[in-house]
């Protein structure tokens, strides 16, 4: 069991979870993730590493199904059944490039260690975070520490650029020289970003979140077709070239257990709240 140091809601449905660990920090690198299982009956789910030190690791997640609902109910001093990592391949960090980093949803938090690594290696970091409305944006102050520019995008125009990510990208990439785009967030965001940069032929790295079980290369549920070849998200990824990903396959594989996820959540709610 692993003790929860802190769990706090950052914005509606998005939480920060800090869990005790004295082992994970040793080899942790930007772009890697951990697997968490809330309790003995829980599912193993991958969550991006947001920060780590000698005593703990931090993750940011969106409350959506049973597992994340359980995590969102944790308080300091509670325990989770499983915490293992770091897993996955770290982000490849280029040198002296101009990189546009896009984050949405939990991906805003997941950007933090990556832009830190980019910045430390002499890259120019332009960070763009997006949400439906201003009140769903977060961590601007933390992101600014490692960003040369920080852009906010809201669909309702309550803050920063008004519109979708693709509108911002088209506009920004036209006016600025960008060598590479890096995206963290839901599958739709990574897909949309890749499709927007494809005609411009700007290298685009996406952090994917396929369904996983063991997350060490054993089960293969996280398979992603990249450049026509089957790759395992957990050990070959989770980051891939967005222009080579078979998005139709990935989007449908994300939905394999949609029916069961709904069933599980209503079961959990009945059990928990009566």
């Amino acid at each position, binding site marked *: 069991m692993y003790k929860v140091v802190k769990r706090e809601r950052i914005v509606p449905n998005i939480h920060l979870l800090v869990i005790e660990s004295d082992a994970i920090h040793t080899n942790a690198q930007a772009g890697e993730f951990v697997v968490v299982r809330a309790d003995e009956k829980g599912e193993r789910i991958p969550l991006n590493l947001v920060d780590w030190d000698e005593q703990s690791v931090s993750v940011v997640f969106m409350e959506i199904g049973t597992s994340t609902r359980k995590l969102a109910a944790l308080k300091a001093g509670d325990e989770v059944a499983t915490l293992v990592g770091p897993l996955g391949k770290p982000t490849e960090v280029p040198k002296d490039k101009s990189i546009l980093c896009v984050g949405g949803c939990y991906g805003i938090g997941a950007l933090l260690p990556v832009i830190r690594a980019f910045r430390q290696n002499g890259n120019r970091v332009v960070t763009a975070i997006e949400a439906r409305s201003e009140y769903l944006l977060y961590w601007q102050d933390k992101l600014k520490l490692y960003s040369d520019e920080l852009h906010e995008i809201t669909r309702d125009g309550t803050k920063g650029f008004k519109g979708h990510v693709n509108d911002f990208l088209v506009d920004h990439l036209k006016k600025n020289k960008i060598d590479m785009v890096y995206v963290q967030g839901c599958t739709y965001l990574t897909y949309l970003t890749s499709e927007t940069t494809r005609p411009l032929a700007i290298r685009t790295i996406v952090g994917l979140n396929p369904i996983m079980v063991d997350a*060490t290369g054993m*089960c293969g549920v996280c398979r992603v077709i990249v450049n026509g070849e089957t790759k395992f998200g957990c050990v070959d990824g989770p980051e891939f070239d967005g222009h080579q990903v078979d998005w139709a396959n990935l989007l449908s594989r994300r939905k394999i257990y949609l029916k069961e996820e709904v069933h599980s959540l209503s079961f*959990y709610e009945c059990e928990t709240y009566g």
Partner: protein
Amino acid sequence: MAKIEPKKTPMRERAPKDRVKDFNEVPFGYSPEEAINEAKRCLQCKRPTCVQGCPVEIDIPGFIKFIAEGDYMDSIKRLKEKNVLPAVCGRVCPQEDQCEKVCVLAKKFEPVAIGRLERFAADWEARQGESPIPQLPEPTGKRVAIIGAGPGGLTVAGDLSRLGHAVTIFEALHKPGGVLVYGIPEFRLPKEIIYREVDYLVRCGVELKLDFVVGKTSTIDQLLEEFNAVYIGTGAGLPWFMNIPGENLNGVYSANEYLTRANLMKAYLFPEYDTPIVRGKRVAVIGGGNVAMDCARTALRLGADEVSIVYRRSRKEMPAREEEIHHGEQEGIIFEYLTLPVKYLGDENNWVTEMECLRMELGEPDASGRRRPVPIEGSNYITKVDTVVCAIGQSPNPLIPQTTPDLKIGKWGNIEADDKTGKTSKKGCWAGGDVVRGGATVILAMGDARIAARSIDEYLRTGLW
């Protein structure tokens, strides 16, 4: 001398129609009377061939003689001198290809049911409550890291802790047992048995670190800063696919995923447990080994109407244990022999709906000595499926090879190790079981472990590599 009963004492088991409804164990095991009867069939050969057929060299006539005399305590003691997991091996060893194959009785009659007797003795011990801890020797001050809490790792841990070395087992998953827990279903090997054996090791002073992925959380080189020796028993965890069209459709599983969901994550108890599994109605399992049988019988228990095993050779070449094939047949699994899937077809939502297969015939023997299956041209046909499980084998997990540059790796991604000692190309590192052999068996992993434990002990005492 009394006349020898030509057949094994039968082992009672649950009726197929009842047992396919749940995940409880299928055979009941022998009663003491049945065990004594069967034990008396053993001729107590002066030069027993059965022992040579056992990868861990159990004194088979010895433990059987104690059963025949009703002395079960000494029987289990004799077994445990060579085998830390008798309750497991009695259930999952391919006895028909090992000890029982070379039993002298087998020349004329059915061999002695060595596996069933081993299981009997171990289960008897379990019913007596917590087993006593043996007297442990003075600590040697040497530390050994074991990677993987599967059958091999547990064997090395048992052997080395008994010699006074401090042992820590690192396990990637959240439960110990390796393939015994994530792979082999409850109805064939109740998990309680493994947890009891692991608990015994922990009571003997073995440290168990779960949720620790060597190669990621720490590398082998980092472990070697703290430990005097490392044993790698990480198994063959990387699933193979056939690389045919449609394999990434929804509803197409690797055997590892299917079994891990069902066994380790207890998806058969969904939604009480959170991990789901597709409960297909028409399930095809590709492959002919024990893993394929386990998947097919799991699918039945998850409520499938029709489950077929699709195997490219014939029944004779099937690598699965005879008992598993027999149980599968009893439970109504359909066996499509000499059949090879060539393509999966899906609907507009990317779910598998049909499978295209090719019929085969047997040609000349191949490198494995089995007759090579040859496709019959134009024999393609299409059949409806809603779930496919690919159980065609697996190779070693690459995480350790990738992060240990001076470890010599074979062409299948396996770690190369000396078969007399288990030594790898890297000083202080031993390896054995499936990570060296590719997909093999529990008992071979335990045999490798025993050899490596001897070599590790020698190294720790002498410092000679």
